[in-house]
């Protein structure tokens, strides 16, 4: 297992140090996390995390409650900073720039890296205004362009047909599953590069869950997706790679079928076979 991570690391390093021309591999890696450590006050939340997130793939992060999987996800768009006592060390290179640098504008990062939350959190506004919110704050005011963005985003989130006749109604009138797809559409409206999903189906019924999962498969053609899930079947169904976190450490990170069929670490096997967690 150690070897696996080592391999991953050297692979990542090769890309990053860029001995080869960038064009050959630049499209490949989106996020490169190097020796990331994170503390909540005295609690060591993430320990020496090294991970590469690849373009147009779905990367699943699994692990028991409190293992740091959500914390890691929130570090990728620096939402973790909303907790005032957080400290970090190490590097997270997003498109080759370290986002943990103090001079990296966090708003710029979050415009490129969208996020979908555990509980649907639409704004108490009309469906239209929910989707147009992002483009509007970034200065797009032209009604025609906004109309196009709204339609495109809702289509992208596979909810256009359900809501096209009631765009002016409050988003809170929709079902939980629809609200979550509205939130996905809101995130698509600024045309991000990466979408982070923090247990996006944990508050949804099975049918809505299925719809969101199908949507994720569809979205990966255009976006790179990182999804935190407590549902291992979900990780197995929809992801290309899976990282297993335990107590703030990455225990194993590999192709999803490898993780689920021939895990290298005993702890991974114990977890995915349901012996703990």
């Amino acid at each position, binding site marked *: 297992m150690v070897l696996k991570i080592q391999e991953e690391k050297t692979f990542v390093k090769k890309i990053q140090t860029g001995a080869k021309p960038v064009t050959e591999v630049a499209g490949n890696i989106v996020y490169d996390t190097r020796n990331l450590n994170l503390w909540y006050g005295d609690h060591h939340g993430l320990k020496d995390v090294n991970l590469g997130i690849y373009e147009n793939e779905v990367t699943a992060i699994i692990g028991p409650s409190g293992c740091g999987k959500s914390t890691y996800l929130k570090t990728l768009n620096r939402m973790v900073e909303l907790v005032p006592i957080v400290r970090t060390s190490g590097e997270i290179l997003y498109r080759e720039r370290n986002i943990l640098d103090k001079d990296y504008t966090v708003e710029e990062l979050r415009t490129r890296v969208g996020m979908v939350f555990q509980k649907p959190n639409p704004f108490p506004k009309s469906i239209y205004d929910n989707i147009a919110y992002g483009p509007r*704050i970034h200065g797009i005011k032209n009604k025609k362009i906004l109309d196009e963005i709204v339609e495109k985003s809702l289509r992208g989130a596979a909810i256009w047909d359900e809501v096209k006749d009631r765009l002016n109604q*409050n988003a809170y009138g929709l079902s939980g599953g629809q609200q979550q797809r509205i939130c996905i559409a809101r*995130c698509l409206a600024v045309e991000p590069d990466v979408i982070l999903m923090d247990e996006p189906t944990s508050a949804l019924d099975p049918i809505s869950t299925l719809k969101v999962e199908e949507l994720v498969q569809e979205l990966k053609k255009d976006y790179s997706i990182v999804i935190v899930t407590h549902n291992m079947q979900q990780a197995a169904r929809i992801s290309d790679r899976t990282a297993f976190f335990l107590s703030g450490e990455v225990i194993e990170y590999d192709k999803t079928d490898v993780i689920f069929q021939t895990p290298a670490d005993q702890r991974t096997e114990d977890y995915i076979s349901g012996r703990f967690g």
Partner: protein
Amino acid sequence: MVSQKENKSSSVQQLIANSRNHKTKKIVEKAMPALLFSAALISILTTFGIVFTLIFETFEFFKRVSITDFLFGTQWLPFSGKEPLFGILPLIAGTLKVTLIAVIVAVPFGIGSAIYLSEYASEKARRTIKPILEVLAGVPTIVYGFFALTFVTPILQELIPGLKIFNALSPGIVVGVMILPMITSLSEDAMSSVPNSMREGALAVGATKFEVAIKVVLPAALSGIIASVVLAISRAIGETMIVSLAGGSTPKFDLNVTDSIQTMTAYIVQVSTGDAGYGTTIYYSIYSVGFTLFIFTLVMNLLAHYISKRFREVY
């Protein structure tokens, strides 16, 4: 063993049953609703009593002065010997001048500080500032009145030449300061109760803190904010001591804020502390003015109620 256990549990059940059948418990259960209802009834009856008195005495007043003269008369000269005039518009003008100035002072500062407290202030700053605001809200209005007369007015006189010692501006500003904590506190409550998930949703599409505050939190809390403003206006309309002390006692129907005025409340104070005899027109006039004041604040309170329902962004 099993039967013993059963015995034990049945004995606890027995004890519970005994206590349930206890006499005092039964009486208390019966009597409490009636007692609580009468507590609620007292405040309702008091309200009706006040309204009834107001209406009754106002009716007496209108036996002596015509309603049209009262509502549309532009001169309020109740003490002018043979030909007293009871046109309420000058008193309403005085009240509205003070209220308007108070709102201009209190709304921007009140909502501004509410945004600061709810969205920017650290836990420590919030813990320091909120109690101070509450102290401000607890200052007796007579103190505010003296503050207006002896501190604010002299400063204003330096800045504005020609400002009279009694004027609308100074009490207006001070009434604004008085209602400020009310707007801040209620608006802050409304904004703090906007769920964090909504802020996160906005931050996640790249909004800045200010954009989150203005375009997400403020609209979501708007009904509470408007209700707080309307309630504060209602409080300003009914404010008495500040305007009595610093506003003067010269009712005038105009838009001048630098000259002496009289508000509805100040007139009531003036008559109540003077020696108007029972049964005189002047005596009844304070009820008619009081009734008008009551209508004003009632309308504002109903408006606050309506707005907080109508504009609620449901989440």
